[in-house]
């Protein structure tokens, strides 16, 4: 035993010694003199959230390509370093440390899940580097640090909007809520329910499910028995499609309402007839006639064969907002970039005009849409 211990401690030591070999030489860098600007992207390229991470990478790379074609930022080309976090908070935090330790990197975009963003937040905060998440909606995320920014908009804004849409726009009075049991789902459920009850409506049932669930029949049967006017689905589009299909199979005909996470072409292909008549809202709409939206949608579709969804568009916005902030700061100094980013007002993005609140959240504008004839259409009261 002893012999093994000693012998293999040496191996351990050797492997630790080998670590600096892949560290890359540490060099003093003056970013203002270099002719490129490095930006980092943390996204889940493998694992359960790979789908969203891949969309992040596609959009951000596309965005950088366009920016560089148009002359870059401060006359320099943007260069992207991509890190795969696997959706694992541990790895996301390690990546955060990797980015912040690298003096050439000026700011970071990512991660996808709020948990990953929250786990890496203390590092960005301590190392003083901008962490701009396209999708983190956790109510503690942006307020948690001066260096953290979110552009998806919190449920504190979207919840009341949807509650008003449901109560006043659609005349619904009793609603059953089904939500995914994660930070986003809980927030969505909470803000919607609070606002709906304040308007005078009744939340008749609330049920949650864990990520990865495929069978919602039990929950739906229970909710059906409460006979609500409508069903509110705080779910991603793929779960939303499953819930809708199973609802129809149960023979439950009811109005369905949900947040903007449902907005995806995939909802239509996965859900088919079952999602017909569903009400939701969008900040980004592929049918939006605005020139920049159409340009982005056509480019994305011609490259990847699918229409971009809300999350992809948010990642595209993130890189553009960041580029604009660097341009405005006039330098690649991390603190200057943060100051400039915080002052972003009325930035014309694909997902609507973006102005950061004092804590670093974005206030979004929402457009009511519904599904009719198998397509998302703008809903006019």
């Amino acid at each position, binding site marked *: 035993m002893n012999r093994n211990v000693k*012998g293999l401690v040496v191996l*351990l030591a050797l492997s630790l010694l080998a*670590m600096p070999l892949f560290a890359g030489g540490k060099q003093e860098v003056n970013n203002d003199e270099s002719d490129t600007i490095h930006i980092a992207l943390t996204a889940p*390229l493998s694992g359960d959230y790979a789908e969203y991470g891949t969309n992040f990478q596609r959009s951000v790379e596309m965005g950088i390509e366009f920016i560089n074609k148009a002359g870059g930022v401060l006359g320099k080309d943007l260069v992207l370093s991509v890190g795969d976090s696997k959706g694992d908070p541990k790895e996301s935090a390690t990546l955060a*440390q990797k980015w912040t330790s690298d003096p050439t990197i000026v700011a970071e975009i990512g991660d996808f899940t709020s*948990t990953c963003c*929250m786990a890496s937040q203390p590092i960005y905060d301590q190392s003083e580097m901008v962490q701009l998440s396209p999708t983190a909606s956790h109510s503690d995320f942006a307020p948690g640090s001066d260096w953290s920014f979110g552009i998806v908009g919190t449920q504190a804004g979207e919840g009341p909007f949807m509650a008003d849409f449901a109560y006043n726009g659609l005349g619904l009075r009793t609603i059953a809520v089904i939500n995914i049991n994660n930070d986003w789902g809980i927030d969505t459920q909470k803000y919607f329910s609070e606002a709906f009850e304040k308007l005078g409506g009744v939340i008749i049932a609330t049920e949650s499910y*864990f990520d990865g669930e495929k069978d919602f029949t039990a929950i739906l049967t229970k909710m059906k028995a409460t006979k609500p006017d409508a069903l509110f689905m705080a779910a991603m589009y793929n779960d939303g499609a499953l819930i809708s299909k199973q609802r129809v199979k149960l023979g439950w005909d009811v109005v369905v309402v949900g947040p903007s996470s449902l907005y995806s072409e995939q909802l239509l292909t996965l859900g088919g007839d079952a999602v017909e008549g569903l009400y939701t809202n969008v900040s980004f709409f592929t049918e939006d006639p605005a020139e920049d939206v159409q340009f982005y949608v056509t480019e994305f579709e011609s490259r990847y064969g699918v229409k971009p969804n809300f999350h992809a568009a948010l990642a595209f916005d993130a890189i553009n907002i960041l580029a604009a902030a660097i341009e405005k700061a006039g330098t690649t100094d991390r603190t200057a970039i943060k100051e400039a980013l915080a002052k972003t007002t009325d930035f014309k993005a694909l997902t609507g005009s973006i102005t950061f609140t004092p804590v670093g959240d974005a206030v979004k504008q929402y457009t009511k849409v519904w599904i009719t004839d198998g397509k998302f259409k703008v809903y006019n009261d």
Partner: protein
Amino acid sequence: MIAEIKKFAEKNKLVVTIAVAALLLLIPLILGSPYLLRVAIMICIFVILSSSLNLIIGFTGMFSLAHAAFYGIGAYCSALLSIKVGLPFLITLPLAGILAGLIGAIIGLATLRLRETFLVFGTLAFGEIVRIVIMNWTSLTRGPMGIPGIPFPKIFGFEISNYTHYYYMVLFFAVIVVLLIRRLYNSRVGRAFIALREDETGAASMGVNVFAYKVWAFALGCFFAGIAGALYAHFVRYISADQFGVNESFAILTMVALGGTGSIIGPIVGAVILMVFPELFRFLAEYRMVLYGLILIVIMMFKPEGIAGFKGMFPRDFDMMSIFKRKKSKTEVEEA
């Protein structure tokens, strides 16, 4: 090559020990970058986890798929006590270990009588139960929202917020845990267990209360996992239930198996390799995890005792080449 290193280490015991100790102490200087230092800190935390799981496997001959649950219990316990009650780290750390150890003892009492396949399911189910309780007990754990703002540990008024300091602290605990486990293995009970691991009836007939020792080993392993959880919680400063799921249990078990079950150094090697691997192969992007799966299969196929494990644990007739040729009949083996 490993044999030669062993031989060398054997001959120059003192020199090697001093060299290794010096190396471990100088790591913050050698690594330089906080990124690598962070990896080193995570390695130390996972060395505690894999070594403690190895203690359970070594003493009970069975493996638990609930280790991440005890790790999570420790993390939540320490985080909540320091945030809600305001207790200092030096008190929350042992409390985290004790809570995890107590729950471990109860789970051990209930499940350690199960046969192998059933124990796998039983511990797997328990791991999921812990995660679900954390997710649903929102008034205490904030459920899926997680716990942000966990303070840095403070020891005698000295705040450990610097990576170098944190490294020395987790290194200290990792070394203590490894040495304790080594001491246990080499104790009278430990030797009896290693000799009798494969033969429970034999151990029982020798007058050893096998079951009681198993429960003790299980509880102690869980205690260390709880300690690791506390160290982790105050390091990342944001914890949520999904950081302690089944995948984490699988990762810890993989470290033990890859490094070498039953040896002291095995889990350490496993933890180092599996924490360094993802960083080393980042350039592969989405192909990285494909390679990870492939490497796992290949190593386990060709070195089933683990990289630093010993062959001694295996039945004599184990023969790697048997995949390539028809298996000899029993009599042929005996004649040979």
